[in-house]
């Protein structure tokens, strides 16, 4: 097949177009100079096409690959992970253009292209990415069609059309496969990509951290409450992390809090400390769709009493996951927002942990705390006095003065302005100094309802820090010192609680002041949510639920049967449509009836010879079978009447004759009909 070895111009043009389309989304991680390499390769290819330059020699190709590999090493660093591998694939995909001599090379390049095109989904996951990915697949398929087109035709757009039709016809079966083919879960553990920086709450809290986070409008998670049982705003504290260790500047989880073996991974466990939670009142159930955080902790309303199987729970009643959340994940939780926890008392080690303070930091606060504790009659009175102090003198702002070495002293007695982390940090420090166990809790406060879809979104700007104080007989109680300064923060969110100059620092969606734009944004956000929930979030659990609903079970034979029948239906449907399109066309109605008669004759063993008219056929067959001859002569007469005399009434009769026509089987002795 030597003549098929050539690469048609249309195929080459499509390959270049497909390369641009495929390389574009990889720009987020691929070095910019890769585009320069691509342009250079295209120039070279053009010169080869013109016959001006030759193909590069093997030595040159190896050299180029080495240089490119070195460049990638510089760009990505020595660590070989998925991103670096994709970079290498991209380089190969680009350079392959220079050794594209025949059809075989072209096919290898296209196949490589399919793989590279799919890897863009490692970096982009939104609905637009899905749309764009389909475009790359169409372009590649058009290249494939052009490669299989005959060299006689230089058609460019028809291959695009053909590719679109093919892919569109493939969609129904794809949906069935997507829904039904079992998700096995990762075959082996893949290294997580640490390069992908994710915004969100981190594992420690220094002054200014949460203030910086609050300026991001990025989505943290979405929540759907079951049966619309939405807790009131003052209960929408999404707990994430608990910090019990303070080094003077930074709050961190204590070593014990971080130890994964102390967490409990059995939902129904009867461990002693799990019994210390005493839920009161009615539960609230909700499902959370968490954006990737790269962390192991999850967010839930306190106190979670029931949750998904794969999750664990830490000592401070916070939900955990074994693996970092690298992809959007959904989980279901039931919480009792009214509860008593550890009301019976703290263990010694715990008490020690929740009273820990760094030596020689904030001496002024320590002294003041001891003094106020003596003056106050009870713990509650001490707390009230501190909160009143905040209320009287403090300002809530995103741009506080910078604090010195003794952050709490500076904040409490001098600058007296700050963001939630300042309030939480100083409050907990003060409580501990006064001998009351206390800790910092970090998470999100609030949620915004999307009016289009029934869900609530929590954004990074809702990030918040507050305090939990252990009171004798009541256990852990939440105190939010920020609420003392800016009560609107709890009720109305961040916007309403900041001054207008401060509020300008907040990131908003484009055109947040235009009602129409805002509505469109809400719709888009709602669509995004559905996309994430049903497309990206379709996992083993959802699948087994779906299979249960539609197939009555998730056994392999049911899935195989469903997939097979979907495939068979698709193939059969397409075949029928093809045969229907290729059905014989009759210019005259009588011809259709005559064709029917002829088909029946053929089935009975009689054939019309080329050039024989209906009448002469009737005459010839009449010699073998007089009765058949008579019937056929009648039909032939009707045929002539309809065809040549335009006799409408004869058409009805012809139709009746044709449908009632039963020719006798031709006997073997009658084989002399050809004579």
């Amino acid at each position, binding site marked *: *097949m030597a*003549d098929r070895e050539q690469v048609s111009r249309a195929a080459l043009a499509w390959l270049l177009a497909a390369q641009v389309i495929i390389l574009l989304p990889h720009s987020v991680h691929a070095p910019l100079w890769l585009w320069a390499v691509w342009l250079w390769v295209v120039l070279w290819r053009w010169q080869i096409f013109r016959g001006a330059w030759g193909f590069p020699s093997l030595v040159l190709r190896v050299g180029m690959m080495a240089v490119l590999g070195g460049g990638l090493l510089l760009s990505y660093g020595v660590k070989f992970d*998925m991103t670096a591998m994709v970079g290498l694939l991209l380089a190969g995909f680009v350079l392959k253009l220079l050794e594209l001599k025949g059809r075989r090379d072209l*096919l290898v390049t296209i*196949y490589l292209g*399919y*793989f590279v095109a*799919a*890897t863009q*989904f*490692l970096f982009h*996951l939104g609905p637009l*990415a899905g749309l764009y*990915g389909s475009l790359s*697949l169409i372009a590649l*398929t058009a290249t*494939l*069609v052009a*490669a*299989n*087109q*005959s*060299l*006689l*035709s230089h058609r460019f757009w028809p291959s695009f059309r*053909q590719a679109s039709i*093919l*892919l569109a*016809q*493939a*969609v129904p*079966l*794809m949906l069935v*496969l*997507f829904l039904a*083919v079992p*998700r*096995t*879960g*990762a*075959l*082996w553990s*893949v290294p997580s990509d640490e390069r992908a920086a994710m915004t969100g709450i981190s594992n420690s809290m220094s002054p200014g951290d949460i203030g910086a986070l609050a300026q991001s409008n990025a989505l943290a998670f979405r929540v759907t409450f079951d049966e619309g049982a939405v807790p009131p705003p003052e209960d929408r504290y999404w707990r994430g992390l608990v910090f019990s260790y303070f080094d003077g500047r930074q709050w961190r989880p204590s070593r014990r809090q971080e130890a994964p073996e102390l967490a409990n991974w059995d939902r129904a466990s009867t461990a002693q400390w799990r019994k210390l939670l005493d839920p009161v009142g009615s539960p609230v159930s909700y499902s959370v769709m968490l954006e990737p955080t790269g962390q192991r902790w999850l967010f839930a309303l306190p106190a979670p009493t029931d949750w998904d199987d794969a999750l664990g729970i830490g000592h401070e009643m916070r939900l955990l996951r074994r693996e970092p959340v690298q*992809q959007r994940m959904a989980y279901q939780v039931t919480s009792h927002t009214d509860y008593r926890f550890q009301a019976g008392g703290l263990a010694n080690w715990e008490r020690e942990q929740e009273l820990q303070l760094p030596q020689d930091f904030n001496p002024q606060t320590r002294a003041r705390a001891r003094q106020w504790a003596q003056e106050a009659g009870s713990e509650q009175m001490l707390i009230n006095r501190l909160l009143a102090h905040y209320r009287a003198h403090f300002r809530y702002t995103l741009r506080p003065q910078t604090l010195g070495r003794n952050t709490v002293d500076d904040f409490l007695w001098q600058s007296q302005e700050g963001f939630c982390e300042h309030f939480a940090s100083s409050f907990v420090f003060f409580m501990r100094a006064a001998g009351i166990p206390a800790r910092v809790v970090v998470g999100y406060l609030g949620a915004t309802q999307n009016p289009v879809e029934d869900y609530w979104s929590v954004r990074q700007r809702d990030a918040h820090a507050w305090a939990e104080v252990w009171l004798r007989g009541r256990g852990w109680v939440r105190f939010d010192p920020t609420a003392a300064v800016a009560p609107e923060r709890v009720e109305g969110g961040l916007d309403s609680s900041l001054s207008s100059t401060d509020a300008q620092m907040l990131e908003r969606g484009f055109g947040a002041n235009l009602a129409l734009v805002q509505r469109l944004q809400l719709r888009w956000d709602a669509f995004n949510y559905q996309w994430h929930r049903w*497309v*990206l*979030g379709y*996992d083993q659990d959802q699948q087994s639920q779906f299979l249960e609903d539609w197939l009555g079970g998730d056994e392999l034979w049911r899935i195989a049967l469903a997939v097979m029948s979907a*495939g068979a239906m*698709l*193939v059969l449907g*397409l*075949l029928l449509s*093809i*045969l229907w*399109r*290729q059905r014989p*066309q009759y210019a005259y109605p009588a011809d259709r009836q005559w064709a029917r008669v002829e088909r029946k004759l053929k089935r009975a063993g009689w054939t019309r010879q*080329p050039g024989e008219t209906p009448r002469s056929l009737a005459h010839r067959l009449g010699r073998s079978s007089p009765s058949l001859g008579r019937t056929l002569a009648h039909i032939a007469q009707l045929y002539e009447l309809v065809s040549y005399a335009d006799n409408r009434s004869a058409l009805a009769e012809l139709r009746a004759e044709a449908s009632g026509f039963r020719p006798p089987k031709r006997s073997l002795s009658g084989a002399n009909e*050809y004579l």
Partner: protein
Amino acid sequence: MRVSPILKSWFWAWVSRRAPRAASVRLRHKSIYVLPTAQGWGFLLVIALLWVLGTNYENNLILGATFLLLSLMVVSVVHAFRNLSGLTLSVVRTHPAFAGEFAEFDVLLEAAPGSRHDALRLGWDRLLMIEADVPAGAQRSVALSHKARRRGWLVPERLRIQSVYPLGFFRAWSWVQLDGAALVYPAPRPTDLSPQSRISHDEGTELSRENQEEFQGFRVYQAGSPLAHVAWKHYAREQGMHLKDYSGYQSEQVWLDWDALPGLDQESRLSRLCYWAVAYGKTSAQFGLRLPGQTVAQGGGTAHQRAVLKALAVYGLPEATAQGSGRNG
């Protein structure tokens, strides 16, 4: 792959039953076969790799792309079939050839209503495949060559028509047995020995041999006579069209005689007679052919030469083969 001969003949009988020989053959689902190509298997490998990638990263979009490509493969089976389905083939003309050369068959390809047929490849020999596109509602004629091994009527075996369009994952093909036979003349074998018989010599020398171009008189023009012999001067004088008659032409009346080639076997004789028939066909000589039990009268011109060559081609062959393709499919 070794297949037992019985199985093989059974297979071909089965194929023939599904696609009997006919003057015009429309490709239908009964006679179209579809199987994956090496590229198709390669693409399946790409799909498998993508599935591993998507599964390991638990990335539903990659999995979606994987399933889309898998479905694309399934869809392409139907389209590979469609590209052949409904195509009508018929032999419109055959061109005779000499044994050892290639006989040409003009095959007409007619598109099915409302469909086009791309990148078709057809031929008897895998090395001599012809590529053709048939646009919707159109006809295309292709000239297919078939090696002519022996003299006689060449009835080609199954014609293979195939295509991998649109994606190359699957090859659809069909075997077609078309009515239509090409005449194969014996391979001309040059020889010094003239096969002219003595009798022709005697008749040819009655008029002066030494002055072959001697003018004899005029004859009335008959359609088909060589224009070189037309008396143009008479024609210009409006005296009607006449032919100048030369005596020399009568002396070039020869017989190609089987008996003039003694000591040779049948095929060698036919080859030599064929050589001379070709040689005399290039001249204006009147020549005839004498074979045992068969005579072609003397004559000239292309049609006559063809009759002579045909007689040589089918000489001594059984009636059935000599008639070419009968309705025996």
